[in-house]
């Protein structure tokens, strides 16, 4: 490998080029398109798409309302099951959820465009800030929600609807969680994440305290004392390390942190971008950082994943997106060594293969990539100082029952931080909703905590 100075600089592309590259990935349907797309829905019995939706949106019902030009009614059908139906319409991997289940696939390989239709129905309601739900009479009960991401906001909204007062404690400067800080920029343009947060909060009864970290600024114990119920939706705070020496080399970065910076900056052309970028990982975050690096002007972007395509967390659609953006995906290689003195200049991988019982083994064969930037995108884990040591966890995640109840009385949890969380906004929203319904039941009925 030839020695050369690290090439990491901003403004690889003009601002105009970058604006173009970060425009809406799936532009919204216009009315004629939406009406024709809606006409393709067969209004199935016990619809497979609805069964496939983690939040159980009655998809044929909302599409029928699009057909009959009842957009507000359509949005109500969506939002009553999923208050983040707008964001989910943009970021859900519909190709492995509702659209994969669509019966149209059988003979046509072209499902009803459910995601785009959901956006068509929800966009006008959010843009006009039309409130479709009213709060029930006050119960006088107070709930704390820890975490301002999809799980927390979903829980808070449903609790507020049910007449409870809610305080949301958010670690960040503004609520939204990964919707605000984590999702690829071209999936949620025009500050949609904050518009959606504003819409959710507008129901009333929800106070948001930003910049408050659990374990540092407040403790779970104190929240349990001060509130009638606590919901924990803190996500996964820490990024997994590669487990290599020299991970502190400059240029070795967390994909999550970089994306957060990218999402918050006013001028993407000012972001430092490597000429050669290597992404280690195989999930959605790996695709997001790879594609966004390419769209910021990186010359060469490689994703390296230690297993095969079938094991990747990124869906086929996401992998295709990476490929058409000029990203190369390499399989069956695990990181072994970072190369470089102060700044990373390359990374060495060792070829892997499946051994007995499906265990990954190494082959001894190595390969090297030149790298000005190495992104770690190999997953996250619950922050080291989570929420109190007394709560039961397993494999670094909080254990919950089917009502999202934890081992601690009056403490519920949901989203990525719980066991069974799957890094999807839509699942987090469902956890929050299910927890809120359970909280409401516990607060209004005499229900014993399960032991």
């Amino acid at each position, binding site marked *: 490998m030839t020695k050369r100075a690290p090439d990491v600089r901003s403004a690889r592309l003009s601002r105009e080029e970058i604006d173009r590259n970060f425009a809406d990935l799936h532009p919204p349907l216009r009315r004629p398109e939406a*009406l024709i797309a809606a006409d393709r829905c067969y209004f199935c*019995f016990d*619809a*497979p798409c609805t069964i496939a939706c983690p939040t159980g949106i009655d998809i044929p019902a909302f599409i029928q309302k699009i057909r009959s030009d009842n957009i507000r009614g359509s949005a109500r059908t969506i939002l009553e099951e999923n208050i983040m139906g707008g964001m989910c319409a943009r970021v859900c991997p519909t190709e492995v959820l509702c659209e994969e289940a669509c019966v*149209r696939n059988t003979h046509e390989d072209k499902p009803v465009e459910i995601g785009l239709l959901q956006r068509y129905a929800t966009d006008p309601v959010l843009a006009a800030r039309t409130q479709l739900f009213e709060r029930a009479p006050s119960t006088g009960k107070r709930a704390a929600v820890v975490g301002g991401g999809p799980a927390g906001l979903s829980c808070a909204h449903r609790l507020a609807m049910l007449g409870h007062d809610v305080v949301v404690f958010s670690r960040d400067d503004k609520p939204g969680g990964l919707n605000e800080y984590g999702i690829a920029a071209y999936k949620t343009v025009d500050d949609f994440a904050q518009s959606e947060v504003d819409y959710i909060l507008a129901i009333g009864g929800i106070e948001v305290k930003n910049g408050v970290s659990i374990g540092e600024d407040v403790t779970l114990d104190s929240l349990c004392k001060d509130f009638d119920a606590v919901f924990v939706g803190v996500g996964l705070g820490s990024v997994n390390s590669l487990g290599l020496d020299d991970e502190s080399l400059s240029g070795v970065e967390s994909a999550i942190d970089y994306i957060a910076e990218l999402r918050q900056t006013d001028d993407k052309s000012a972001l430092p971008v490597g000429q050669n970028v290597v992404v280690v990982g195989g999930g959605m975050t790996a695709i997001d950082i790879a594609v966004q690096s390419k769209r910021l002007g990186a010359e060469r972007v490689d994703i390296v994943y230690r297993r095969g395509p079938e094991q990747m967390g990124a869906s086929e659609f996401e992998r295709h997106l990476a490929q058409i953006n000029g990203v190369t995906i390499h399989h069956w290689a695990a990181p072994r060594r970072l190369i470089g003195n102060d700044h990373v200049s390359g990374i060495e991988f060792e070829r892997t293969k499946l051994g007995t019982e499906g265990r990954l083994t190494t082959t001894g064969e190595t390969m090297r990539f030149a790298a000005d930037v190495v992104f770690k995108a190999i997953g996250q884990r619950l922050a080291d100082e989570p929420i109190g040591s007394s709560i039961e966890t397993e494999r670094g995640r909080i254990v919950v029952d089917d009502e999202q109840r934890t081992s601690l009385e009056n403490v519920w949890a949901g989203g990525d931080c719980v066991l069974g969380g799957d890094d999807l906004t839509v699942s987090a929203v469902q956890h929050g909703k299910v927890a809120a319904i359970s909280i409401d039941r516990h607060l209004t009925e005499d229900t014993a905590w399960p032991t």
Partner: protein
Amino acid sequence: MADLSCEFLGIKSPNPFWLASAPPTDKAYNVHRAFEAGWGGAVWKTLGEDPPIVNVSGPRYSAIHSNDRRVIGFNNIELITDRPLQTNLDEIRQIKRDWPDRAVVVSVMLPMNEQTWAKYLPMIEDTGADAFELNFGCPHGMSERGMGAAVGQVPEYIQMAAEWAKSAASIPVIVKLTPNVANILPPAKAAKDGGADAVSLINTINSIMRVDYDSLTMYPATDGMGTHGGYCGEAVKPIALNMVAEIARTKETSGMPISGIGGITDWRDAVDFLALGASNVQVCTAAMVSGFKIIDDLTDGLSTFLDDKGMSAVSELVGRAVPSVTDWQYLNLNYVEKAVIDQDLCIKCGRCHVVCEDTSHQAITHTVNGERRFEVIDEECVGCNLCVSVCPVDRCITMRQLTGGKDPRTGVEISDEKLNWTHHPNNPMRQQD
């Protein structure tokens, strides 16, 4: 390619597709364009007395659309021609001269007195027109003045006017019937009794399209007020087919040539009309929706169809399906069919299940051995064809005749013998023989 040329009342035309009397045939300019495009004939937009009537200067048409804006049904409140009679006569004369191989029929609507008919018909015939069509069908505007459908709804008036027309004209007379009657046979018989050479049907159906959802007033409107119009387009075809078949299969009216009209949109619709007894067809809405070029699909499709059927002339198709139309009481009640779902074609949408469950006979499963699966339960299936009608996959659900053995639903042995209601034991009025 099968030759489509045909004769109707001795009038030759290169194909059986005539433009119906309507806005497309109001002027020589339009008719000339139509003939250039290949239409076989035209029934000139209805002439009346001078001074001409006046049309509204506002919306005359509106439509029922599918979500991709395909026109399914169409409505109009336009009246007969609003141009001076002489202008029309001059243009008809010129068109017939320029297009001698095309049928040029003139539609007329006149007040109910014999002198008027005796005065105008010879003037019109002098243009060289091939036939008259008496407009006893227009359901709006003119009917308020005692013409159009107001005549067509009273068989005695039809017969009277047909007689006047026949005595004033030497060319054939076609009576155009209104569907706005309880029974089409008395008007058809009256036309025949009055000496008419043929009937044409249907004219448009009384209709109001909808309201305006903002103002909650009728739509479309003229200065805030609306009036009912005439409904046409593909939505009305089944109504027209029934009336055509009734005339064709009823002894008193059968044998009278029929010009079929009502929602003909593609060549298959023409096959329906011809097979059910029409000798040619007239088209308006399809042209008003797509322009005259649509004639190419109509003629090409019909010709190809005749080739496929081994037929060399349209006349071989005319009336072919008439013997298969009968009264309900003659249907064979011993005949049993069951629906069959082709599991290889089934996409598991479940529409067959839910409609059968909700609105019919609970004869389709939704789960079999714990799997989402839709199968017909022969013990419940009455063979109603609802599942076939709603299934989104063509030929996925078909009907299968049961022959021999018992009908699992009724437990009754299936008989080869025919049994209709006239002889059914449940019929207290059954015929004993």
